[in-house]
């Protein structure tokens, strides 16, 4: 066995490289900077491009241009940068531009604490766009997930032509960890689908039986239009309300109806337990320790770890929770994703533990909540 010793940010960069990322642009910000540093080591020597933008708006703008030129592109930032990305994220959603966006969350609001962790952007990633259409958000638990979920993120961005977020956290991003990279089973690599020959190309035309338009790059043999305006299949402005409605509904449905095909999760089910603990991200690691301690002390708890947060994997959550009387949710904010759990499981008693003080949730806190259900 041979182990590497990487921080989450480095693992994201390596995962991106393996997934075929050829373009990265970012603006330095703690705790995301080491993604930029690593991409700068990885991309230019192998013919890729890594840019330091003049600001966050530019960084994601460079990526959107590169993506439309056919390159797999990624950017990385933290809460203050996601705020500046917002308008470009809306553009990528509405105009179906594949991009991977890493949000290494730090304690907010605003500039907050640069070197303290939090999961405070969980709803912001989902809802921080104009129009409220869905995005995909994947949440890593550890360095291995940083690598693997980044590969999945690229695959999903290619498959669904949409922004895919990695909801990291300073506590994963800047914590170094041993990892056996060789043993990780990689997914097959997805590429955007080119249209079948023979039909005139329309940039937003959706083929029969598909939910996503075929892709040709700007700069190829066939002129391609991209636009942030409300558009029809030809990429020109439309005012036809049926056409507009169909498109908006498709943008929602293409992700929501497919989430079962990318609902990443882990589960630790104890048959005798009547309580299901639900966590995501770094809090999962305290939760595992808490469950282990409780088991030693004779209390059985089951644990569901969500790695796909948005669109909400509703079927998965309902299925996994159906045999439990109590549900406990813990997250590093004052109550964000728990609202989704409450929405999906209205018949369950749901207990919540949230914390926002710049430090990890300790296993003891979770044990207390579970012991008191």
């Amino acid at each position, binding site marked *: 066995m041979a182990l590497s010793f990487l921080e989450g940010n480095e693992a994201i960069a390596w995962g991106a490289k393996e997934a075929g990322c050829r373009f990265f642009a970012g603006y330095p910000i703690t705790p995301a900077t080491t993604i930029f540093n690593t991409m700068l080591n990885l991309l230019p020597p192998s013919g890729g491009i890594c840019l330091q933008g003049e600001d966050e708006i530019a960084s994601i703008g460079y990526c959107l241009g590169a993506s439309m030129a056919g390159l797999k592109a990624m950017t990385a930032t933290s809460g203050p940068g996601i705020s500046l990305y917002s308008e470009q994220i809306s553009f990528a959603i509405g105009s179906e531009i594949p991009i991977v966006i890493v949000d290494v969350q730090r304690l907010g609001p605003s500039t907050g604490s640069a070197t303290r962790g939090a999961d405070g952007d969980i709803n912001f990633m989902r809802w921080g766009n104009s129009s409220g259409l869905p995005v995909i958000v994947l949440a890593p638990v550890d360095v291995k997930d940083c690598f693997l979920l980044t590969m999945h993120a690229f695959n999903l961005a290619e498959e669904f032509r949409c922004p895919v977020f990695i909801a990291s956290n300073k506590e994963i991003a800047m914590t170094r*960890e041993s990892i056996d990279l060789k043993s990780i089973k990689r997914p097959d690599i997805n590429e955007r689908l080119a249209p079948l020959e023979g039909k005139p190309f329309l940039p937003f035309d959706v083929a029969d039986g598909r939910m996503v338009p075929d892709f040709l790059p700007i700069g190829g043999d066939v002129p391609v239009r991209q636009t942030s305006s409300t558009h029809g299949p030809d990429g020109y402005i439309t005012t036809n309300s049926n056409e507009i409605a169909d498109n908006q509904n498709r943008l929602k449905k293409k992700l929501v109806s497919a989430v079962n095909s990318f609902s990443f999760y882990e589960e630790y089910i104890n048959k005798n337990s009547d309580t299901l603990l639900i966590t995501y991200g770094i809090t999962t690691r305290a939760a595992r320790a808490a469950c282990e301690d409780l088991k030693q002390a004779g209390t059985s708890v089951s644990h569901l770890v969500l790695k796909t947060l948005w669109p909400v994997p509703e079927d998965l959550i309902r299925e996994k929770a159906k045999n439990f009387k109590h549900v406990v949710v813990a997250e590093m904010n004052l109550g964000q994703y728990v609202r989704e759990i409450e929405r999906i499981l209205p018949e369950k008693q749901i207990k919540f533990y949230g914390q926002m003080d710049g430090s990890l949730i*300790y296993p003891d806190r979770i044990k207390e909540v579970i012991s008191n259900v």
Partner: protein
Amino acid sequence: MSSLLNKSRPPVFCPGCSHERVAHALDKAFLNMNIQGDQIVMVSDIGCSGLFDTFFNTHAFHGLHGRALTYAAGLKLSRPELNVVVTMGDGGLGIGGAHLLAACRRNLNLTLLVLNNFNFGMTGGQCSATTPTEAQVGSGFLNQLERPLDVCEVASAAGIAYAARCSSYRKDLAQEIEKAIRFNGFSLIDMWGICPGRFTKRNKLTPKDIDKSISDLAPKKGVVSGNVRKEYSQHYKELAESRKSVNAPVTIEASLIPLNTARQEVIILGSAGQRIVTAGEILCLAGLSAGLNATQKNDYPITVLRGHSISELVLSSEEIGFTGILNPDVIVALSQEGVERRKNFFDTLNEKTLILQLPEVKIPSCKAKVMNIDFKAQGIKSQDRALASLSILAKLNKVISLEMLQSALKVRFKEPALSISLDLVDQVETDSL
């Protein structure tokens, strides 16, 4: 070779708008250059200049207000063979000012046509970054308070290698545009024009006035001699090719036998400059050399060489869950400010914990075992004490063995640092402990 203007979507502007002249001149420039639609991308943003991408049978990218240069750069770097032409109004210029400066400094081979008509035409004639102070605009008196911006001067100061100022009514406008497109680097034309829908409703401005105003200014005719230099993407390629490629992260073979396979926690409390993070990494690498999993979580302020520095380390043969310190096996107390950051933590300690304490560092009273170490007396400098502490642990067979430590140093350091660190580890005295 025929016109690239889109016959099914002919240019539509307010009657008398100078933008229409620019659209036809641009088409003529493409014709003169004999380039096809698939060799061009028109990049535009918001405002009347943002209609341009729809008029041409070329690749097109229409995006957010003021951000056109960012998309253009991404496209050009990905497809260096493309002719990238950006249209932007004086509005986009103002809101995207940072991107203009960056483009000037970068010198990527893009062409920016600033369709400068001195106001926001689309939203009601408000003042823009180029509105004259004396103009009557939709922003009341506000333009009287701000000086208009000279695009060419600003761009030249920012390093642009090609900047031209001209009237949109010039007869040879197509040639002017062609020259800018042919320039190998970032080129800009500040094209003065008339917005009949808004600006000339309340202000007198004729093509003659424009000629007069331009001739009153220092001429800007293109190449800015002092700023001519390598084009960005070519230069990027040259420098990138000289970088050494990195193919995989470093791996460490598990070749040694661990001292202990259970979860072990170590926390080093020190100050910036004491190489705390490096020592933490070495402890983890020592674990890896014996097949243990490891995590390292650091805590330090944003200042370099000032403030606390803390490293929290976990080793275990099992997968490591919680990365914080729950019940430490070892605390290395190397500086007072490090201890202060974790002072509440001592209260909960029990006999399991071993504290390595320096004489100059005070710790709160606690139940842990304390071992006093006088590195100063041993002549070990402040920046070597974290590593020296690992040597003590190794010599005591606590958490790591000496072999594991030496193996980690071989992974972490090259000569001459390797020999120096191995000597230091060797030199640390434990006889008195």
